[in-house]
């Protein structure tokens, strides 16, 4: 009973104590809870203290924090925050809201408990603190519309919540993301939120999100800065070149795109030393090596921006990351003909490390590599070099014990010393016989660099007369000549050729030239070339042969021909000659010489061929002859087969005819233009004449002669046209032509005879002086009969014949001519001496121009006196005469004039034209006049027939004129 009483008492005490505990605040409960906001970061910041915690007391506690949105019952976040609390300590805790804080009210409360890990079952939570309300909307102001969050920074791929707060419920508000309308969720009548998932980077200046009232100008928005994700640095490494500085490099990766809003930094942290440095550059950073000879380094490179942090680590030994600096002071000493000593220095690494240096020697197209172990100074003897050769040597070094990186190369050039030429020049000759002398052209090839051992300055040529050993001739030819010409007599000479540089002379090349070339009796063979050259072979020569030489011309069509040769050993009987100069379609001629032990070359064989045969490029110029009605002959004597691009094997003669039939010996061929013709084939290339027979007379043929070779025939160019003559024409020509000739000859003879007969028997104007009849009469019948002299005639009347040309009648018609007689002499007695010879204007020819007064033209009156008066004026007369008023002699019919005796008298004024008036009227107005001519007295002598037809105006003796 006593025990049970004690237990009951304790239980009561415990119950009383519990009641006391529950009625008062629990010790260490949170108190003084204050909530602040950070709109930029959308954070709620809580600050509180712990009740009744002693100053020196330290207690591990857990705080449970509840956050509600819009109303307290809508708890959206519960979190236990554990921390060690010291006495009087202000505690802090932050919470970032996904929804902008401005968009809704938030309520926060918390409670605490002692967080004793040993007795978790003894955790007693304190009472909840009262709800702390956070309402940012009250402080926004009075603008009608707000959009949140402002200027938020997020990474691409993030989820973002946007909201707007409207002051008026009546407003219909639309929100857009880069112009695309968003669908939202209404939180309360004035607030809507929009969840953006997996936002993308659009531009460096951010993404525009805006809301506007549908019926109004209000627009509000935010810029959401979306950053690309900060990448982890790549290829992070560190190295030293001087054991004083570590140079660390890395690849920062792609840009975040928001360098202004979201700057990123790179930090280097070394864990052993605990040192940290902020790198100034995006991709590299320098680190000072610790003076206390720290060998191991553990670096952490951290790339960081507001949103993300990325780190990479490396751990290394400093001596394993040595990147030596390039060697320096590279020199060459003791440079000789074949050797040189190369020296260099390396930068000091504290003399603790050995460097491995690599030397590369470039020369003569080769690379030789040497490895040298170096402490401070490097040295290497380069041997086996070529004389007078430029070499390039470069050296680089690396840590010999722990290779990390080679240094950069350091390069230097040097040239070895010259030596005497080591080889005799390769010499050949061309011998021509000119006027009893041997013209020897010596050719030699320039020595290669390896053979020359320096710059060749000149070539010495010694000509030794083998018949007179004492007769030496020395010739020096300066380089770079490669030929010289010698004129020697028809004896044997030995020629020595040496090349010389500044150091010495090469061995001599010996050649013997005899007076007899001996090239004539070797037959030429054909060889077939390929793209790789000509494969030549020859028969081995009995006896002592020191070698063979194959000679050819690279350009056989050129006058200089570019002579080439090739030396071959005595046991060689074949070779392939190739040259870059060989061209298709060019015939190359090869000569193979054997060289005797006396160094005398003699021709063994001749070869000719093409590297590639081409079809003949042109046709021969054909001359046609002996054309008959049944055949003709074609010849092309001047066609050279040697200059053709292939070996000509013969010719094709094509003959086209209308008949189209081919006679035996020819075959039908169809040309490229589908025309059909007959083809004659000539198999002998030397046959350059062909008779085309079996032709038809008076037929048209066309022919073409074209060569052919193994690769084709010549071009089918223009055909030559020919027509065979008539079969009988030659015979007719042979008969008729002589007949015509004979007839013509007879006709000419008859004509000449008739002329003679006419002259003798019936001339047109009989000449009494020539008349043999008269002389016969005179001498036999009446000696008093004489021939009347024209000087005895005195003209007394001029008959003017007025002919009316304009009437259309012939001027010779009798009724048209109305002669008018002008009586020149009143009395016959008063006239003495020869009368004037006067011509008058014949008005018959100028009726149309009779009105023109400017010509001095006077119409002819019908009455004689007035005409007389006119004619007495000598000036008028001469003026009229001077004009082109000349009647044609032919106007008088021969028959008429032969019946008249014409008496011609001299002009009373003058018969000299020089005395004519000097200013005759202008001729252009007198173009219708015909000139009449005054015949000088001297010319008026009696003549056989000329005087009888002088003029149509005749001076007739009175009473003796006829008409």
């Amino acid at each position: 009973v006593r025990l049970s009483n004690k237990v009951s008492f304790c239980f009561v005490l415990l119950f009383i104590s519990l009641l006391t505990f529950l009625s008062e605040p629990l010790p260490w409960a949170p108190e003084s809870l204050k909530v602040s906001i950070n709109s930029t970061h959308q954070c709620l910041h809580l600050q509180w203290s712990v009740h009744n915690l002693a100053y020196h007391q330290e207690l591990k506690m857990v705080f449970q924090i509840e956050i509600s949105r819009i109303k307290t019952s809508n708890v959206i976040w519960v979190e236990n925050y554990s921390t060690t609390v010291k006495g009087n300590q202000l505690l802090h805790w932050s919470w970032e809201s996904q929804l902008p804080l401005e968009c809704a009210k938030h309520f926060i409360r918390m409670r605490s408990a002692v967080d004793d890990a040993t007795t978790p079952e003894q955790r007693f939570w304190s009472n909840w603190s009262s709800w702390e309300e956070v309402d940012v909307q009250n402080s926004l102001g009075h603008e009608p519309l707000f959009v949140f969050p402002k200027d938020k920074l997020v990474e691409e791929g993030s989820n973002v919540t946007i909201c707007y707060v409207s002051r008026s419920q009546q407003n219909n508000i639309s929100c857009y993301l880069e112009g695309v309308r968003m669908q939202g969720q209404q939180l309360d009548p004035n607030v809507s939120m929009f969840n953006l998932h997996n936002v993308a980077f659009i531009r460096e200046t951010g993404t525009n999100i805006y809301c506007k009232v549908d019926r109004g100008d209000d627009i509000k928005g935010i810029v959401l800065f979306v950053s690309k994700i900060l990448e982890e640095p790549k290829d992070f490494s560190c190295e030293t070149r001087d054991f004083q500085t570590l140079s660390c490099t890395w690849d920062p990766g792609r840009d975040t795109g928001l360098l202004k809003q979201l700057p990123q930094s790179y930090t280097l942290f070394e864990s052993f030393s605990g040192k940290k440095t902020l790198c100034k550059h995006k991709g590299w950073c320098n680190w000072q090596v610790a003076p206390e000879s720290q060998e191991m380094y553990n670096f952490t490179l951290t790339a960081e921006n507001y949103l993300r942090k990325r780190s990479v680590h490396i751990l290394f030994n400093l001596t394993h990351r040595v990147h030596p600096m390039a060697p320096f002071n590279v020199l060459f000493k003791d440079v000789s003909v074949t050797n040189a000593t190369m020296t260099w220095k390396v930068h000091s690494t504290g003399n603790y490390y050995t460097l491995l240096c690599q030397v590369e020697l470039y020369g003569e197209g080769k690379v030789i590599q040497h490895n040298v172990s170096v402490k401070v100074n490097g040295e290497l003897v380069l041997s086996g070099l070529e004389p007078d050769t430029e070499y390039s040597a470069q050296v680089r070094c690396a840590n010999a014990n722990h290779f990390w990186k080679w240094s950069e190369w350091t390069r230097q050039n040097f040239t070895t010393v010259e030596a005497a030429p080591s080889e005799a020049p390769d010499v050949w000759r061309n011998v021509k016989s000119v006027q009893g002398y041997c013209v020897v052209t010596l050719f030699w090839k320039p020595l290669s660099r390896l053979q020359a051992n320096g710059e060749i300055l000149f070539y010495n040529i010694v000509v030794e007369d083998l018949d007179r050993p004492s007769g030496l001739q020395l010739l020096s030819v300066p380089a770079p000549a490669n030929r010289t010409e010698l004129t020697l007599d028809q004896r044997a000479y030995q020629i020595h050729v040496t090349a010389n540089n500044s150091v010495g002379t090469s061995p001599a090349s010996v050649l013997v030239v005899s007076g007899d070339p001996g090239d004539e009796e070797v037959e030429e063979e054909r060889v077939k070339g390929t793209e790789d050259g000509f494969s030549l072979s020859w028969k081995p020569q009995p006896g002592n042969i020191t070698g063979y030489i194959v000679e050819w011309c690279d350009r056989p069509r050129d006058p200089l021909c570019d002579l080439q040769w090739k030396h071959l050993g005595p046991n060689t009987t074949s070779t392939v000659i190739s040259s870059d100069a060989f061209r298709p379609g060019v015939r190359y001629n090869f000569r193979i010489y054997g060289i005797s032990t006396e160094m005398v070359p003699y021709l063994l064989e001749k070869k000719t061929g093409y590297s590639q045969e081409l079809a003949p490029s042109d046709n021969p110029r054909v001359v046609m002859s002996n054309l008959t009605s049944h055949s003709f002959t074609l010849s092309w004597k001047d066609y050279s087969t040697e200059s053709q691009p292939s070996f000509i094997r013969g010719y094709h003669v094509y003959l086209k005819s209308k008949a189209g039939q081919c006679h035996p010996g020819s075959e039908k061929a169809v040309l490229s233009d589908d025309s059909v013709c007959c083809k004659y084939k000539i198999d002998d290339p030397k046959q350059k004449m062909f008779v085309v027979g079996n032709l038809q007379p008076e037929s048209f043929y066309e022919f073409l002669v074209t060569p052919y070779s193994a690769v084709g025939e010549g071009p089918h160019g223009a055909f030559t046209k020919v027509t065979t003559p008539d079969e009988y024409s030659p015979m007719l020509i042979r008969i008729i032509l002589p007949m015509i000739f004979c007839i013509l000859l007879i006709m000419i003879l008859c004509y000449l005879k008739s002329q003679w007969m006419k002259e003798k028997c019936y001339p047109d104007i009989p000449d009494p002086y020539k008349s043999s009849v008269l002389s016969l009469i005179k001498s036999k019948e009446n000696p008093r009969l004489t021939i009347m002299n024209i000087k005895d005639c005195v003209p007394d009347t001029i008959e003017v014949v007025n002919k009316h040309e304009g009437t259309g009648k012939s001027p010779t018609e009798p009724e048209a001519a109305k002669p008018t007689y002008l009586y020149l002499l009143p009395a016959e007695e008063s006239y003495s001496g020869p009368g004037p010879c006067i011509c008058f204007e014949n008005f018959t020819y100028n009726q149309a121009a009779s009105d023109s007064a400017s010509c001095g033209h006077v119409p002819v009156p019908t009455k004689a006196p007035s005409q007389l008066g006119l004619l007495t004026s000598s000036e008028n007369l001469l003026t009229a005469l001077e004009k082109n008023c000349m009647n044609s002699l032919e106007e008088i019919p021969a028959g008429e004039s032969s019946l008249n005796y014409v008496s011609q008298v001299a002009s009373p004024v003058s018969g000299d034209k020089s005395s004519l008036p000097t200013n005759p009227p202008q001729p252009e107005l007198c173009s219708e006049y015909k000139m009449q001519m005054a015949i000088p007295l001297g010319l008026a002598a009696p003549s056989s027939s000329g005087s009888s037809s002088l003029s149509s105006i005749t001076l007739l003796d009175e009473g003796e004129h006829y008409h």
Partner: protein
Amino acid sequence: MGTSAEPHSLVLGLLFLSMPAMGSCSDKYPELLGQLQKQADFMQHTNTLLDLYIRSQGLDKNGLKEHCRERPGAFPSKDALQRLSRRVFLRTLDTTLGQVLLRLAALEQDIPKAQDLEMLSGVKLNIRGFKNNIHCMAQLLPGSSETTEPTPTSPGASPSPTPTLDTFQRRLEGCRFLHGYHRFMRSVGQVFREWGKSLSRSRRHSPHQGLLKGARRMQLSGRNKRLMPRVQLAPGSHRGAPGG
């Protein structure tokens, strides 16, 4: 658009900077007026600045670009400019462009691309050259050293908007400002064009063509600044013309 305007801006910038660089102003009034007019005409084109800004800031979206309109009062209106005397007009222009330069420097912070920044630098160069020409033109006006008319301040052309504005609002404000700037330059060009018309009228009416130069020379010599007749510039074209 932007690429085509860039060489022009550079060329013009160099052209207009050449005079101050040489340390002297041209005394040829028509030539200077023509330069000012051409430059104003060039600067009014939105492809020299506004289009670049809209593109770089992502404002070229439907529903957004409609709000890029000049705020009333940000820049003097055309009517207000036409009412000003020539001297006051030039001073207003100079002051406004100075504020534009300050504002452009602020806008530069929001332009990340180096290419766009280079173009913006060309625009600033143009404005500085234009201001130099304004200075030279002011010297050509009679009574340049004695006039003390007050310079009316541009009501809304403050160097930068309120710093508390968020990026979006600042972006829109920048766009509106640039819109107003181009409109302002268009009005300026029209005013200069009117000056040119009045000059042509005065030339037709006056047989003495060298009066302007003569006036300039006399003005520079400082003997009689009132010798420059109003008829040479724009007879009766402005109520507040100098000397009147």
